[in-house]
């Protein structure tokens, strides 16, 4: 049976459905507002302000268009999606048009009543993030006092309401030693699925790379722990494991291939092939306020730019894995090589791979610097010198 991941963490690229031109998943960033300040947030450094966010009616219209376009699953994300007071109106329409609705939340703003209301409206699944099982460390990482305790409470409500629960545990050098306890915790609270996601170094995480990067030895230990847990917990807990590019031999198929199955919509309505795509220069992104979603998906410049394999250069062009990993991540390729059409340096075939991978070894052995927390204006753009 073919299995397709509809989120952003695509670890095993199975072939998409036969009509590969219809998207499967929509990552809806409802807002960039979030009470947590995790230093590895995947949101861009330039966070969108609340006054530019799509209205309730605009999101509802986008969701109807998404279902008509063939999208099967919607991931309600952020920022923190529950920061929107109209989340109920959005979930209601998503359920009405038959989308599988997934709430990706930090949980801290939820009440039991609100969660029950969402479940009654047809919410299908909750993905709850945790920063660590050690509450003090978790609250330090998120810069949110009492967060871990609240999340624990929320996990209990999710189970009580009969909703399926995925626990998402981003892993890095400042919580990596907790992995075994995190897995045990996922079983104890009744999660059906656990995402053990090594940090991906874009956006805020790239800013904080030296504070987050684990050593190769520590990473290898997590591989062993996860493999043993998968075997031991077969039929009890599904574990998805996302490895850090820096210690991989081949790159990941970013978003399962550019413009292939998944799209991302920012709070202000910009439609992106991946959530970091705005870091690429010279690209224009359509907005759902200006064009229909189907047009954007099929004909939008941004989606066609790196769709398929025609845009590739060597070594991707003739590579037997070109339709497995699609040359990796365009944003990482650009950031490191200056050309988004180059091979992702995460690939061992990239001429820059060795030099790039060396950074991880160096940084992970140094004393970690302080976190640069994710907050509006938190990552100062460096102004050019002079007057």
């Amino acid at each position, binding site marked *: *049976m*073919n*299995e*397709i*991941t*509809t*989120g952003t963490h695509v670890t095993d690229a199975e072939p998409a*459905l*036969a*009509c590969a031109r*219809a998207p*499967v*998943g929509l990552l809806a960033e409802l807002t960039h507002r979030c009470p947590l300040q995790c230093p590895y947030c995947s949101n861009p450094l330039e966070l969108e302000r609340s006054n530019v966010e799509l209205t309730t009616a605009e999101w509802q219209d986008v969701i109807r268009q998404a279902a008509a376009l*063939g999208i*099967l*699953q919607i*991931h309600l994300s952020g920022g923190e999606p529950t920061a929107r007071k109209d989340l109920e109106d959005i979930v209601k329409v998503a359920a009405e048009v*038959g989308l*599988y609705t*997934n709430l990706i939340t930090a949980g801290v703003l939820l009440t039991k009543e609100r969660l029950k209301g969402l479940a009654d409206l047809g919410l*299908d*699944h909750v*993905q709850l993030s945790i920063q660590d*099982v050690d*509450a003090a460390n978790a609250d330090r990482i998120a810069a949110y006092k009492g967060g*871990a*305790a609240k999340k*624990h409470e929320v996990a*209990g409500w999710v*189970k009580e309401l*009969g*909703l*399926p629960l*995925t626990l998402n545990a981003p892993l890095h050098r400042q919580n990596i030693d907790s992995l075994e*306890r995190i897995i*045990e*915790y996922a*079983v*104890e*609270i*009744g999660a*059906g*699925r656990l995402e053990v996601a090594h940090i991906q170094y874009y956006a805020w995480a790239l800013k904080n790379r030296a504070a987050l990067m684990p050593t190769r030895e520590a990473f290898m230990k997590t591989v062993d722990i996860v493999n043993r847990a998968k075997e031991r917990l*077969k*039929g*009890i807990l*599904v574990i998805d494991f996302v490895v850090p590019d820096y210690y991989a031999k081949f790159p990941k198929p970013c978003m399962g291939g550019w413009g292939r199955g998944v799209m991302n919509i920012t709070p202000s309505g910009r439609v992106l092939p991946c959530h970091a795509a705005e870091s690429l220069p010279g690209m224009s992104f359509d907005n759902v306020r200006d064009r229909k979603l189907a047009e954007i998906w099929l004909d939008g410049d941004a989606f066609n730019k790196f769709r398929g394999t025609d845009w590739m250069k060597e070594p991707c062009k003739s590579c037997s894995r070109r339709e497995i990993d699609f040359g990796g991540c365009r944003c990482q390729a650009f950031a490191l090589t200056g050309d988004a059409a180059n091979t992702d340096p995460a690939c061992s075939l990239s001429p820059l791979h060795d030099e790039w991978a060396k950074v991880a070894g160096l940084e992970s052995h140094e004393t970690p610097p302080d976190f640069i927390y994710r907050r509006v204006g938190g990552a100062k753009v460096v102004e050019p010198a002079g007057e």
Partner: protein
Amino acid sequence: MAETVQPIRPTRLMVAEGSILLLPRHIKLRHDAGRDAWVLLAPERVFKPDDTAVEVLKLCDGKRTVGDIASDLAERFQAPRDVILADIVQMLQDLADKGVVKS
């Protein structure tokens, strides 16, 4: 933070001839009109079941045993029951491990 919850520890479901299975509420088997294909919607996953899997999943109704399903398919497809039974036990075990069917 883990010490306050003490639920019954879950165990792995082992599929056998006598198992009675169903799809949990959050797993949705549906025919997608646009693709003219059956899809199985699960948390952050879409499975594309083959024809046999679709027939089997439709019969996982919380009433029939796996043995009943094998008999049904053996009659409909004029195939040896023991071969079908072995195949579907293996398939359903895999699906149970993925959380797609439960008892």
